[in-house]
């Protein structure tokens, strides 16, 4: 009796067609019609103790090779599609990496590609998005829509800068950021759980409120007395012994500020808690079917409250990463839409911490790509280049990832009889 229902899902030929077309574009525009000149892929930084040789290759040759490799992957995908099998996720990832390599090689014809620098900066830029997305996931997994990530990031950024400046202690700054962002989250939690308010409206209002308050304080206070209250500087970069000497991985992952290390640790931790522990099972149950959770004795309101609140404190740390973890001072509306990107990343990552972080890295990468492309080949319209990762993402989401399924009880208030 426990046989599965018949499921007749047609995989279709979307993936091989899209892959094939992108491969063709790569082959023609980055390869055959590509730019001449050698590209040097620098794996090691010039300051590293262990120097690996650079990989040199002709720019257009790289384009051709990449195009052909992409065709091969498209062919593999086609062979799967004929057997009505889905294209495995690793194929999509390899495909993306090959495409990015070709793009980098094309941009840097006659110059070099500092891989460690690009990857490292992408990670640092992605940290606020990753932490914001974690806040979003923790909140949405228990069924509360969190539009207020932007506000939470901004709160964290402001408090981290100001408290660090005044106390001259980054630890206090980080703590203040986490606590105040958690307080912002609590407002969202209480309004949605206790007063059953429309969660999206509460979120939007919180965003506007935080933007207003920080703008006001920035103008009236921070700019007047910048030296004392908005001059925190950035935290020290910590080098983890031995690990930071590994070529490429060392400088990217093991030579960072504490905010980056935290992000690297928190993502697998949240994944683990969510999918392997009792706490996570209960949280997901609350987000999927609160009444069912209630009938087995789980306190729906309390679960939602704590997940949203703790999520808020993580977003606060993401805000701190913007000021004392990167820029060194607070600026007007400096979260600049990262909170909304984090929101998109949550959906893109299908409410999974690992996937969401990968998506956040993609956004970090596209930010640094624009900056770097501008330096390395000034003639190329950078807006166009910046578009590329997003186009790839959209295709990935539509074609490969498939339909994502949000927690069933998302945005639905739970009322007990």
């Amino acid at each position, binding site marked *: 009796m426990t046989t599965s229902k018949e499921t007749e899902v047609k995989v279709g030929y979307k993936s091989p067609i899209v892959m094939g077309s992108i491969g063709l574009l790569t082959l023609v525009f980055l390869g055959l019609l590509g730019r001449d000149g050698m590209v040097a892929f620098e794996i090691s930084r010039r300051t590293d103790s262990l120097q690996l040789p650079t990989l040199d290759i002709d720019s257009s040759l790289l384009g051709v090779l990449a195009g052909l490799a992409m065709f091969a992957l498209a062919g593999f995908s086609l062979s799967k599609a004929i057997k009505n099998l889905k294209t495995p996720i690793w194929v999509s990832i390899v495909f993306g990496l090959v495409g990015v390599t070709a793009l980098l090689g094309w941009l840097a014809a006659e110059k070099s590609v500092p891989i460690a620098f690009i990857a490292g900066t992408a990670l640092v830029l992605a940290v606020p998005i990753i932490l914001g997305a974690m806040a979003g996931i923790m909140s949405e997994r228990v069924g509360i829509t969190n539009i207020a990530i932007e506000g939470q990031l901004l709160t964290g950024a402001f408090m981290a800068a100001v408290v660090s400046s005044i106390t001259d202690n980054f630890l206090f700054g980080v703590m203040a950021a986490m606590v105040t962002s958690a307080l912002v989250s609590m407002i969202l939690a209480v309004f949605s759980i206790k007063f059953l308010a429309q969660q999206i409206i509460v979120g939007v209002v919180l965003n506007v409120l935080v933007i207003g308050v920080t703008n006001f304080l920035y103008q009236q206070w921070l700019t007047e007395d910048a030296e004392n209250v908005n001059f925190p500087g950035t935290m020290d970069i910590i080098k983890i012994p031995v690990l930071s000497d590994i070529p490429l991985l060392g400088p990217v992952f093991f030579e960072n500020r504490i905010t980056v290390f935290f992000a690297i640790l928190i993502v697998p931790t949240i994944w683990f808690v969510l999918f392997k*522990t009792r706490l996570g099972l209960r949280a997901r149950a609350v987000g*999927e079917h609160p009444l069912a959770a209630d009938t087995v004795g*789980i306190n729906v309101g309390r679960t939602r409250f704590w997940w949203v609140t703790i999520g808020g404190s993580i977003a606060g740390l993401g805000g701190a990463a913007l000021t004392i973890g990167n820029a060194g001072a607070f600026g007007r509306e400096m979260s600049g839409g990262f909170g909304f990107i984090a929101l998109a990343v949550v959906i893109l990552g299908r409410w999974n911490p690992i996937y969401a972080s990968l998506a956040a890295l993609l956004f970090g990468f596209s930010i640094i790509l624009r900056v770097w492309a501008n330096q390395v080949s000034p003639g190329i319209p950078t807006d166009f280049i910046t578009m590329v990762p997003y186009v790839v993402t959209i295709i990935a989401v539509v074609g490969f990832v498939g339909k994502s399924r949000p927690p069933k009880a998302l945005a639905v208030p739970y009322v007990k009889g």
Partner: protein
Amino acid sequence: MKLELLGITKRFGAVTANEDIDLVIEPGEIHALLGENGAGKSTLMNVLYGLYTADEGHIEIDGVRQNFSGPGDAMAAGIGMVHQHFMLIPVFTVAENVALGHEPTKALGVIDIAEAKKQVLEISERFGFNIDPDALIEDLPVGAQQRVEIIKALSRDARILVLDEPTAVLTPQETDELMEIMRQLAKSGTSIVFITHKLREVKAVADRITVIRLGKVVGSAKPDAETSALASLMVGREVMLTVNKKPAAMGDVVLEVEHITVLDDRSQKAVNDVSFEVRGGEILALAGVQGNGQTELAEFLLGLRKPMGSKAKVNLNGKEITNKSVREVLESGVGFIPEDRQSDGLVSEFTIAENLMLNSSYKSRFTKGLNINFAARKLIAKELVEQFDVRTPSSETVANKLSGGNQQKVVVARELSREVILLIASQPTRGVDVGSIEFIHEQIIAERDAGKAVILISSELDEVLALADRIAVMYRGKIVGIVEPNTSREDLGKLMAGVTA
């Protein structure tokens, strides 16, 4: 364990759902709680389970007064509940669902999934449930999901098991299996409260019967009581359990349906290459357990869903209506009673009169040019309310103030007061009181006798057997057989479970 409910009263605003109810459940007995939909059975059980707090009265277990502030307390006291709408999380596995709330854990709060599976298998084997602990709930058939719910309750050492309308979603065979399980459980000392409105099942399995009407206990009985006596106790007056009807006078073919394949909302084939025809003057019943494509087929016939493939063809009185819009289908003479009157049949914030003109809002007797002819509408509404015996203070009453049966009468009135040649009635008496059921059945028979073609979609076997001239059984999107109405319940049950002769 002896359970006593003493003087339970529960009010929702001005409505009293339970009034001074006393109920005693002895250890190891199967106690049936019999009553119509809306009689207050589920409310009472939710009070017992701690989901609602009683306004008056209290609960005692073995003579000790209990104070349940939530389901957790009720469970701790040994009460397990299988809800009418399953409390299972579709994206979790069986083991996760069973473990939820009392998970076996290792260090760091990590779930010991092996232990959880062991628990499931243990209970599953003890009672012969045949459940795979790794299966996702959404992949399981309803019967299996229900057994998961029972495992869930038993894994918490429930000594009183409350089954809320457990047979509504089951095939007759699954129902028999469930009854066997209930007997086994009772033998092992578990008390069972069996909530239902189906007399046949109560008589088959219960040790004692308590009848509830309008929130009050109106009597108790032994299972050897007369069916008609139980029914009149439940309804409060004599009821006719059989429908009087003349033999069908078959006319010409009205509806021809050929090679219909329809997708459901998840893009799966809900209706798979179905063909049939209906003649004037006959009632064709589409029987089957809920969720085997009946809903999608009805929505397709109305034009709400589009067919797949080029072979699909629907002819109404010789005219093709295959890909017509809903309005065109309605105009060509189709009446439709949807299965869910709350969401599809009525606009519950509209008055009865407004609801009556929903499908004739243009160029009809309700209109005058581009405007509504209010005077005419008032008159027509008043007439229909009388003709269809809608119990309401006035035709300007808002629909959601009416009882389920009267709401359904409004829908029936709207569909039958139009000139139709085909009536599609989808679960026309679901959640309707027995009195209204009688009335609605009479109306459907009257349509048939007037030479109209009728498609009756119902998962209630009693209703199908009472009304149908031919019975088409649907299983997994296909019509697995078209049989005569004198076919035995057992054979129909086999067909409904997909067993073809």
